[in-house]
């Protein structure tokens, strides 16, 4: 069987005909396999959903109890037979509960890696390499200029700034699912033991991480705090909130942003960021190329991001590669406002029309 007969892109997403399911479908389908909880990959309204327990919980938190007709939790490494194929979920190292999905049919194995990173992350299981014939890779940071470096070093930069400006508040824009908790965990690892403050949109998901046994130390809502009491503190907020009227409750805030995009100055400057922190939940260029090589796959399908450069690189290494036409997946840092709209209306007062600023 040819790989494209096992998995092929259709308007609803990546379809597996012999298995009778879609992976991360962007439209409601009968049976969906979901790699992780980010809103562009995990959407409501499917008939049956197969995902890790954490991903199912996150979908429930965001969309409510009846986000799908039925759900089934799968453990990492568990083999499940669907139609003519076998599927296995393995850690993707992207966020808590994130998985790569290996689809095996006869002798051919395709790995849909969703979003992944090979860098260390104290808040989720580490990326696991799956040898395969075809590897589907994201390319969010698919240019050699993206090298994320050491996240601990970036957190050190943040702490140095807090020390230098004790009279100012530090606002760290970070995607509320995954990145924010990773920054908190890194702050704790660096020895920061003061309370960390949370924007309203962060609370639910962060408390969920704590319930799952990820230690994040003392957390407090920023809501209701006196302005002067926020001097010298660190607050995590969705990126859209750091340029919002919401920031006026903080004393002379230093605006930080934790994202792989912060590597490029123009990107940081456009966003009015004063303290860019290069911390990403996606593999950087070195991570993408090393992972692709290590899978042993002879064929690489490249999706969402800078496909051109990665496809070019694969070809120079003698690998067969092509961009995969999948639409509807974005970079979570940019899709933040839409993703957290529900939480924001519950948690923080926002003037009309501001959520997407």
């Amino acid at each position: 069987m040819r790989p494209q007969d096992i998995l092929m892109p259709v308007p609803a997403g990546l379809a597996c005909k012999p298995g009778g399911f879609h992976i991360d479908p962007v439209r409601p389908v009968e049976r969906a396999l979901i790699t992780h909880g980010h809103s562009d990959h995990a959407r409501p309204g499917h008939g049956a959903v197969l995902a890790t327990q954490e991903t199912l919980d996150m979908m429930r938190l965001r969309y409510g109890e009846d986000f799908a007709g039925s759900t089934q939790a799968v453990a990492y490494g568990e083999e499940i037979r669907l139609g003519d194929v076998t599927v296995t979920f393995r850690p993707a190292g992207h966020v808590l509960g994130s998985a790569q999905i290996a689809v095996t049919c006869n002798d051919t194995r395709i790995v849909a890696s969703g979003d992944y990173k090979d860098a260390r992350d104290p808040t989720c299981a580490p990326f696991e390499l799956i040898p395969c014939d075809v590897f589907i890779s994201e390319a969010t940071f698919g240019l050699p200029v993206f090298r994320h470096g050491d996240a601990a070093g970036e957190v050190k930069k943040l702490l140095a700034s807090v020390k230098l400006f004790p009279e100012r508040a530090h606002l760290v824009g970070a995607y509320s699912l995954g990145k924010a908790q990773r920054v908190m965990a890194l702050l704790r690892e660096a020895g920061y033991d003061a309370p960390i403050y949370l924007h309203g949109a962060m609370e639910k998901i962060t408390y969920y991480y704590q319930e799952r046994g990820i230690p994040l130390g003392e957390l407090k809502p920023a809501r209701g705090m006196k302005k002067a009491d926020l001097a010298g503190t660190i607050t995590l907020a969705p990126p859209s909130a750091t340029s919002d009227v919401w920031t006026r409750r903080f004393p002379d805030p230093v605006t930080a942003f934790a994202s792989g995009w912060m590597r490029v100055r123009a990107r940081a400057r456009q966003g009015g960021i004063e303290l860019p922190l290069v911390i990403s939940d996606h593999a950087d260029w070195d991570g993408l190329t090393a992972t692709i090589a290590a899978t042993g796959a002879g064929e690489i399908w490249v999706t969402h991001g800078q496909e051109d450069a990665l496809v070019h690189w694969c070809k120079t290494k003698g690998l067969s590669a092509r961009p995969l036409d999948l639409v509807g997946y974005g970079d979570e840092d940019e899709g933040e406002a839409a993703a957290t709209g529900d939480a924001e209306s519950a948690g923080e007062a926002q003037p009309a029309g501001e959520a997407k600023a």
Partner: protein
Amino acid sequence: MNRFAQLLDRLAYEPGRNNKIKLLVAYFRETEDPDRGYALAALTGALSFKHAKPGLIRDLITERADPVLFGLSYDYVGDLSETVALMWPKAELPAHNNPPPPTLTDVVTTLRTLGKAELPAQLARWLDELDETGRWALLKLVTGAMRIGISARLAKTAAAALGDKDAHEIELMWPGLTPPFLDLFAWLEGRGNKPVNRDPAPFRPVMLAHAIEDADFANLDAADFSAEWKWDGIRVQAVAGRDEHGRIQARLYSRTGEDITGSFPDLVPSLRLPGAIDGELLVLRDGRVQTFNVLQQRLNRKIVSPKLIKEFPIHLRAYDLLGDGENDLRELPLIERRANLESFIAKLNDPRIDLSPVIPFASWDELAAARADPKSAGAGDDADAVEGVMLKRRDAPYLPGRPKGPWWKWKRDPHIIDAVLMYAQRGHGKRSSYYSDYTFGVWTRGDAGDELVPVGKAYFGFTDEELLQIDRFVRRNTTEKFGPVRHVVHEPDQGLVLEVAFEGLQRSPRHKSGVAMRFPRISRLRWDKPPREADRLETLERMLMTMTAS
């Protein structure tokens, strides 16, 4: 080098002046000699070595990296140094053989003596040894493109703050100092004597005036003051002195102490008497002072062509004398300095340097009349270049900084128009959550009837309370969003009228309206006025005609 790079990186993103100073002071405190001294030199433009050309950087990267990947990356990043810094593939070195990254001192001292042919290989070695930010700073440094929003003055202010000293003191000794400034830092840290400036033509910190308010006059006696025209040029200090060989050295400084002699070589021969003149730099044609717009052609020029010198003849109008030969006059009262100045200028007897005349007046009313009509009050044909009057206490010594009381500036009323708010953009730093940059327009006849055409942009003049009001208005009346810019409703009966004050107008082909304003600011919010009653472009054009005709 990596530490200096981190400083530059942080400074490049920090909009607040005081915060920049804080970052700099922390760097100077934590960094040892001579690295911090070379950093100060880099920030004040005091380093001299031959800069690398962008072509060299491009060659380096294409030798190391896939040209297709470089092309895609460069397209994305948009800046050559940054692209190369980010994607530089380090040479594979055995782990035990990794040399430590170069210090800033290594880089600066090596570049000073390095031959052109050796530069590429040396740069590649350094790029291998540094991290992303370090590579970026290195490439900015060697290409001489270190634009990070730091003035030399700010860097010196931060150095002064390290030792709790006044930046004026550093300015005074600066021309006598050389990188890496070991003696300066020793003094700042209380380990050494104050360095002396052996410069024969040093800068002296300038004295500045406060703007006078109507209410101030009640407490001031006209008899205590002398008045001069406030010229619309640039404030300079022209200093000449004899070096150890007895030769005259002349220098022209900006009000912040920046040496701008190189931009005005045509004035240097006139500075042949040892002394220090405080005055205004102007362009004079046929004995008449030209407007600031004309003078602007001579500012910030690296290369001064003979044509430029001929077309824009430079002139110094003197109003104070701070030093005469070896004598420091700054302790003397103004009237005595003025007498000295008059004889100094007479002795100099040079057509390029003249006296700024004193305005005779017996009462504030008389001075108000002179300010309202400089032409008949003595300024004559030069009246267009007068932007108000200066009041100086006759008994006041020359004090550096901006002491309150001895000097006042009393500007002419600015030009004012009513314009309509069209677009708003978020500010930076403290103002990043506020729409604080405003594009405003006036009415003109378009293809489909009257339409608004943008005539300028203003981001100050309003109070904090007014900023909140405009911000609220912008958020509630946005019609479209383009990135950080919002289109604000601007219809004949819907919109916000801003009273805009400005100092001058000039023709500008770059603006759709054809005119550009000098120093525009929001002077009042006209909530009471419907946009249809705002001014028309014809009004501005009429103002422009009267300004150029008179």
